[in-house]
């Protein structure tokens, strides 16, 4: 549920009243100096007076205060009966730039008053209850129930529903439902701030579902920006996008970030492919950081986090805005150069008075999709000869004949195989698929709002119970939150929050080539190995030791995946506490001050337990354990001044200061060589290794100022400036300043545009963001361990300068045909200079790398979204939204004397930055080519391979990304689909390299007889020649070729480059809201259910065998390589939500 505008209000009909009644009352005239001045001007502009924009944000405020505020903002005189007004109910109102008329209507909602505006005077008067009403028709009165939502299907709260020509009316409740008794031929008027008023004839219908369309003239979408300040989107000079939170709760994922994929132009999500508990990588507008993270900063309720939001409960989230670039985030300082994701949690604001509650259940199933195609012709062995201890599938063709069983358990043959030492040599097509199970997650959420005159309390509890597609990869999480807003007095407001998160991972999976990753073993199982034999993964030998049941015992780098799954345990417990206390005080009409302090603290306890006989290091078992904790504590103060300089000019100035403290430490221990097998305790090890600890401490102090100047509410100028002092930099460079400036103009308010354009805005901004580094980078360390001292191989630099990002962006927003057509586009260019990183120098220099400033990474790109509402009428509507983004990251400069920088390397590739090239080129071993680019083949028929990994073969960055969202609504039904397109980018599949080397892939089936010709009938896209230059015709066997190209030790990356282009059905949501009349006899206020599917299928996947989004790790340096990831999953779910 999204609260569009946080007010429950009724728009009263206004009629001319007898002014004589007023004269009986004691009249109070209130004026002030501004009013006097404005009166003069208002006389001349009174016709435009109603266009006056009022912004109000009051909670439980006396009506008088609200009216005074309206007087002040409008400059009109105010006339009312103060005795009556004092007795009026308190007002909750939160509106942005609405008309005077609407502001008054809403302020007087549910009050026994109405108003009248004449010239420059506002007259507040009691509703004359005895005033004659227009007589109703004689038509039969019927009960009408219904629901009001916006065109996107978000329910609207507090929409006034009035029988035309009467004062008979009601408003929608928090679920958007209304109930009214009206004549069958009446016309209902639906009125709501920011939306086009609609008149709907009843025509005898007892249910009416109404869809209101946004009024583009008073576009009032609110975006939460820096420091938690809400701003009208139209005043922003940079790109920001809101995410509808209902999408996150319905199409729920155990990792909140995963749900953002495909929804925001310029945002990419990649998952680390290691099951429940795996991290996600979020990138806004591409990579830019060499040594640090390119991921955005996360801000919750105005406070920067010490991590991401992946473990927040989606149920607690009220709004989520994506501020895409440095421009949007300049004020958050150092870490915002990658953009920011800003979350506001639920506070219960706007909910009905009293106690309301909501309970929701979400079930999700995750079904593994095995894209890889395996051969089912040849089994275990090598050279066409069967071997029961072989780890490869280069054996003979399947013929069903009896072959020797591999079991190393002396009792297995007797007990499980009935004494037969042989079994039939047949393909086991499902022996990989059998390993997986249906992953399940079940989330239960309870939320309660307790609202009273002076305070709102929102309580939330979410429990998630999830199991991955690998047995044992489970998560139990608890998420408890409380947020309280209260008015300590008229001017002093308190906002406080505490959020406790506990996650209990039973077994976090290892990834990539880790010997503890079961995928490493699973994907290589010879094609004849039976699941039922492998499932018997352990046995006790004669000495009582637990041993691994495996076909090639003690093989370095192989094992029984079932053993790995069950006997390599990696539990992790995480606790996180987010706390915040904020006080704001309104000093005067123009001045206010806010003080705030917030903490984000995490503790974790992780263990790794390797049972005895885990290949190849566990002697009686081994154990390691790390306890760590970290916190980030931000304290800030903000002073705000806002004033209308004149009717056209308004100014808002802010000055603030922030103190940020970050501390982290860890304590760990490990040991192997146990006395007692499989007793996982440090006390049990014979070689307790010294405890390993680390400490981190840094502090950043900042002062900042920002101001907005607006002209006629149509031109907005924003300026920010921030100065940081970071403890991580040398004292002479510790202080750094960075400014930003932005300008936006609402063209439709300034000039006459063709009627086709309902709204047009242009914006431009320029920002600089400074950044510091990690602590302790100024002096070369010498670490002590085991009574020795070793010198660090990184040479620090005592003269580091802060790094800096310069970013420029231009944008255009258009709403056409009353908002039926929407277009939004941004072009940007960002350069990140003076980055702080370690560059490798020759190891002979005495160190392996030098820490220094350098580099210029440029990101240029373009983002656009286009939306249309095909039928925005009542019963059926269809919205189509497209988003598109294109980013190009280029390494313009590395550092003086460095033309390239290796970021990471492994057996298959090096991840490099090369001057003048796109960010993140992948180099690997490749074919030796002649001058014409033809592959040279040796006399044995195998292509010649470069010895080093020095051929540029891939780059993961996409050419462009797009999302297509279709949403349909019919009455209470809704359906939305999200199709996600990625074009371009490539990666190396280490999985395929390994799987081809062991002969399990379908394409290794061809040519087992020795009939392959490189460049002839295999790798047909290459032209191959012999050393003499003649066309290659040399035959080679499949086994020889794939051993040459694949395998784990020194694979030829060039042979396994895959295109990451894909199109997928990312999300599918079908929802049904139970009609109000069905619920009227139940205890429920509302009930909704939805069916959800995520990642259902690929419409196109060029890489075929893997999902390009499933990478190995989320570090920058893991890009461009897929290595032994879990299969991708399709998930489907059901969610039920009840309101009480």
């Amino acid at each position, binding site marked *: 549920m999204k609260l569009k505008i946080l007010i429950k209000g009724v728009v009263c009909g206004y009629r001319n009243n007898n002014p004589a009644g007023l004269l009986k009352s004691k009249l109070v005239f209130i004026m002030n100096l501004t009013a006097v001045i404005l009166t003069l001007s208002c006389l001349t502009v009174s016709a435009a007076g109603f266009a006056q924009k009022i912004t109000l944000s009051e909670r439980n405020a006396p009506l008088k205060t609200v009216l005074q505020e309206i007087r002040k903002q409008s400059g009109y005189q105010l006339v009312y009966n103060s005795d009556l007004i004092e007795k009026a109910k308190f007002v909750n109102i939160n509106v942005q730039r609405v008309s005077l008329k609407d502001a008054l209507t809403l302020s007087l909602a549910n009050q026994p008053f109405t108003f009248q505006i004449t010239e420059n005077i506002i007259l507040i008067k009691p509703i004359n209850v005895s005033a004659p009403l227009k007589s109703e028709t004689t038509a039969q009165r019927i009960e009408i129930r219904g629901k009001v939502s916006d065109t996107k299907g978000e329910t609207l709260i507090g929409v006034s529903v009035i029988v035309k020509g009467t004062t008979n009316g009601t408003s929608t409740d928090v679920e958007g439902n209304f109930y009214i008794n009206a004549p069958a031929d009446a016309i209902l008027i639906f009125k709501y701030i920011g939306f086009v008023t609609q008149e709907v004839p009843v025509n005898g219908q007892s249910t009416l579902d109404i869809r209101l369309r946004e009024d583009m003239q008073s576009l009032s979408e609110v975006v939460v920006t820096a420091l938690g300040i809400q701003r009208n989107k139209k005043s922003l000079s940079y790109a920001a996008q809101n995410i509808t939170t209902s999408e996150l709760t319905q199409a729920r994922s155990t990792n909140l970030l995963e749900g953002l994929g495909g929804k925001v132009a310029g945002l990419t999500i990649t998952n680390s492919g290691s099951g429940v508990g795996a991290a996600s990588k979020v990138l806004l507008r591409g990579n830019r950081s060499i040594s640090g993270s390119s991921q955005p900063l996360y801000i919750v309720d105005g406070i920067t986090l010490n991590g991401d939001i992946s473990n927040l409960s989606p149920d607690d989230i009220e709004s989520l805005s994506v501020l895409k670039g440095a421009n949007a985030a300049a004020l958050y300082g150092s870490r915002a150069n990658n953009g920011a994701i800003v979350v506001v949690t639920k506070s219960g604001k706007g909910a009905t008075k009293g106690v309301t509650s909501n309970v929701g259940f979400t079930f999700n199933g995750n079904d593994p999709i095995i894209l890889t195609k395996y051969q089912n012709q040849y089994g275990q062995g090598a050279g066409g000869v069967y071997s029961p201890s*072989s780890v490869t599938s280069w054996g003979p063709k399947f013929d069903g004949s009896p072959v020797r069983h591999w079991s190393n358990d002396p009792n297995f043959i007797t007990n499980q195989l009935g004494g037969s030492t042989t079994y039939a040599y047949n393909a086991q097509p499902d022996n990989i698929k059998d390993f997986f199970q249906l992953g399940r997650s079940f989330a239960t959420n309870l939320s309660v709002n307790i609202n009273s005159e002076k305070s709102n309390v929102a309580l939330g509890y979410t429990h998630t119970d999830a199991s991955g597609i690998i047995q044992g990869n489970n998560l139990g999480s608890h998420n408890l939150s409380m947020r309280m807003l209260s008015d300590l007095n008229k001017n002093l407001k308190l906002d406080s929050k505490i959020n406790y998160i506990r996650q209990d991972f039973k077994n976090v999976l290892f990834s990539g080539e880790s010997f503890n990753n079961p995928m490493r073993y699973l994907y290589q199982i010879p094609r004849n190995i039976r699941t039922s034999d492998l499932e018997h993964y352990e046995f006790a030998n004669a000495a009582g030791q637990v041993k691994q049941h495996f076909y090639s015992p003690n093989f370095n780098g192989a094992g029984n995946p079932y053993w790995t799954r069950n006997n390599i345990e990696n539990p992790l417990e995480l606790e996180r506490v987010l706390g915040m206390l904020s006080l704001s005080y309104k000093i005067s009409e123009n001045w206010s001050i806010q003080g705030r302090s917030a903490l984000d603290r995490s503790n974790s306890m992780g263990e790794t337990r390797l049972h005895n006989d885990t290949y190849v290091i566990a002697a009686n078992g081994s154990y390691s354990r790390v306890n760590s904790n970290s916190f980030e504590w931000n304290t800030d103060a903000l002073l705000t001044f806002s004033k209308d300089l004149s009717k056209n000019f308004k100014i808002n100035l802010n000055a603030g200061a922030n103190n940020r403290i970050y501390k982290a430490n860890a304590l760990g221990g490990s040991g192997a060589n146990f006395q007692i097998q499989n007793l996982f305790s440090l006390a049990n090890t014979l070689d307790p290794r010294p405890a390993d600890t680390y400490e981190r401490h840094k502090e950043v102090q900042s002062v900042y100022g920002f101001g907005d100047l607006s002209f006629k509410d149509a031109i907005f100028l924003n300026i920010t400036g921030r100065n940081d002092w970071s403890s991580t930099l040398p004292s002479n460079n510790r202080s750094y300043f960075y400014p930003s400036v932005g300008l936006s103009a609402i063209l439709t308010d300034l000039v006459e545009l063709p009627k086709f354009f309902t709204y047009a805005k242009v914006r431009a901004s320029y920002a600089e963001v400074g950044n510091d580094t990690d602590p302790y980078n100024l002096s070369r360390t010498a670490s002590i361990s085991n009574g020795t001292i*070793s*010198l660090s191989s990184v040479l620090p630099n005592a003269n580091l300068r802060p790094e800096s990002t310069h970013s420029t962006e231009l944008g255009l927003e258009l709403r056409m045909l009353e908002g039926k057509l929407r277009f939004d586009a941004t072009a940007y260019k960002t350069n990140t200079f003076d980055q702080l990183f370690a560059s490798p120098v020759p190891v002979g220099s005495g160190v392996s790398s030098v820490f220094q400033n350098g580099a210029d990474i440029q990101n240029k790109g373009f983002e656009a979204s286009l939306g249309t509402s095909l039928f925005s009428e009542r019963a059926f509507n269809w919205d189509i939204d497209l988003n598109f983004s294109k980013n190009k990251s280029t390494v313009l400069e590395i550092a003086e004397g460095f033309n390239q920088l290796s970021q990471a*390397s492994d057996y298959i590739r090096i991840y490099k930055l090369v001057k003048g090239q796109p960010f993140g080129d992948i180099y690997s071993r490749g074919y030796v080519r002649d001058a014409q680019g033809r592959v040279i083949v040796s006399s044995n028929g195998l292509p010649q391979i470069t010895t080093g990994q*020095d051929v540029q073969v891939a780059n993961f960055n996409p050419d462009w990304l797009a999302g297509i969202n279709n949403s349909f609504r019919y009455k209470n039904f809704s359906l939305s689909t999200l199709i996600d397109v990625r074009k371009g980018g490539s990666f190396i599949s280490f999985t395929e390299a390994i799987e081809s080397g062991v002969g399990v892939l379908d394409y290794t089936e061809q040519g087992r007889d020795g009939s392959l010709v490189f460049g002839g009938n295999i790798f047909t896209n290459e032209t191959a020649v012999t050393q003499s230059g003649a066309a290659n015709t040399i035959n080679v066997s499949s086994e020889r070729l794939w051993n040459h190209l694949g395998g784990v030790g020194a694979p030829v990356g060039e042979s396994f480059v895959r295109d990451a282009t894909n199109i997928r059905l990312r999300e599918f949501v079908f929802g049904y809201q139970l009609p109000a009349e069905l619920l009227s006899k139940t205890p429920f206020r509302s009930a909704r259910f939805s069916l959800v599917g995520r990642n259902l299928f690929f419409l196109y996947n060029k890489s075929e065998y893997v999902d390009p989004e499933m990478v190995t790790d989320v570090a920058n340096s893991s890009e461009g390589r897929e290595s032994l990831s879990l299969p991708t999953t399709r998930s489907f779910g059901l969610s039920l939500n009840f309101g009480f």
Partner: protein
Amino acid sequence: MIFGTSCTKDFNEINTNTKVLTVDGLDQSSYGFVVKRALYSGVYFDNSTSFLRGHAAFSDIYSNYQTHTHPDFYSDNFVLNGAWLDAFYGGFYTGVAPQVKYAEDYAVTNKYDIENAMMKVWRVYVYHRITDFWGPIPYSKFGNGEKTVPYDKQEDIYKDFFITLDQAVALLKSNRGKTSFLGAQDVMYAGNVDKWLKLANTLRLRLALRVKYADAALAKTNAEKAIADGVIESNADNATVKSAIAFANKYNTLTAWSDFRMSADMESVLKGYADPRAAKFFSAAGTSDPSDDPAGFTFNFEGIRNGQTKIAKQSGINAVSSNMAPAYLTVGDKGPDWPVLRAAEAYFLRAEGALEGWNMGGGSTKSFYESGISASLSEHGSDGKNLAGNPYVSSTNVPVGYDSQSVPVSTIPVAFQASASKERVLEQIITQKWIALYPDSEEAWAERRRTNYPTLYDRILSENPDIPVNKIPRRVPFVGIEYNNNRTAVEAAVATMLGGPDNGVTKLWWDKKP
């Protein structure tokens, strides 16, 4: 700014990690810890990964001590993969060379003469093992802090070794009878200057014979100088880096990975000689082959030929062949001490010197040869009898086939062949030295290249078109990280110092035996 300066006064303190030292903050009290690290890391090329990638994957294999049995690694088939060698090279230059340089420089600056000498000897020891892998390497310009670090020619490096040893020996001689303040932090000799002097001289002797075929005069001068100054003559003076739980022998990590097994050559020689050291070097095979045992004793140690095919490596050969001896196998155990230089080798070097007619200090080739054998046997706790119960030194045993079908690896007997040709005697000396050096395969591979002895089996399969099965790599190619980060220098080394293409065929400077 007022805000900034007043509140940031403790920032320097905040940005100081109190859990680690800084290099600038090291002093005499911490000096010994650096030395200890330099000694310990020095023998293992810093860490178990680099030890695996250099020692276990190359020198162990090219000395034919071990056979590689992992199907995914091909160094035994002469594939000289630069990426594997990166870690080895990097381990040395980031984990060993800086420690040694710091320790030597600090001693020079602070006039610690004894420690200065010790670190000079140690520098020669650690670098000679590295230059013998590649030939030219960064040596004199190591630690220049520049983006290009030039290489040195191997000839120049060796000549500097002798000069460095001159300097060290002079310092040690003038401190005879003294003990370094390092005490037990000297994990080799507990600061005993006299023993360090013997090590320095024995190292000189080793290097002298190494250059025998390249510069005979230099070899003779230095060999005789070494003897004159006194070399290691007793196992009590052996240079070994002592293992401890926290400083375990790296084999005690590696052997668990089951990447290699006893070579067929080792089986042929040890079994033929009924060598009592077999059980100190290897474990009994999981499944042994009694059919190839000689009459009179059981020999459960089984070797396999080098250069196995990938297919064969998958046929379960680990189970039917011998791993290293039990002392090397327990993960977490400290394992055996690492041998740097031992009395046995010193005697074999003197035997070869005597064979050349040099003054090796009152002994004959035969007496030195036999002393070498005795020293090695006693080092391994043997009473001098072979497995058949007869005296080892005088036995006429010769190698036998490693299985019942195969031929013996060579025909060289244990007993000294006084009447044999000089080459035949050299083969005898080097064959015994090859056994005695185990597991110091860097030295064994270097001596095999220098002398072409011992006579060993051919590979079964070579995957390197340049190197046939009956040859071995003479060096390894320069590594990828050098081509990435020090390209100008490495290209200059190839063009002007190496004397051939950067491959496994080009011979090192001292590899000049006709």
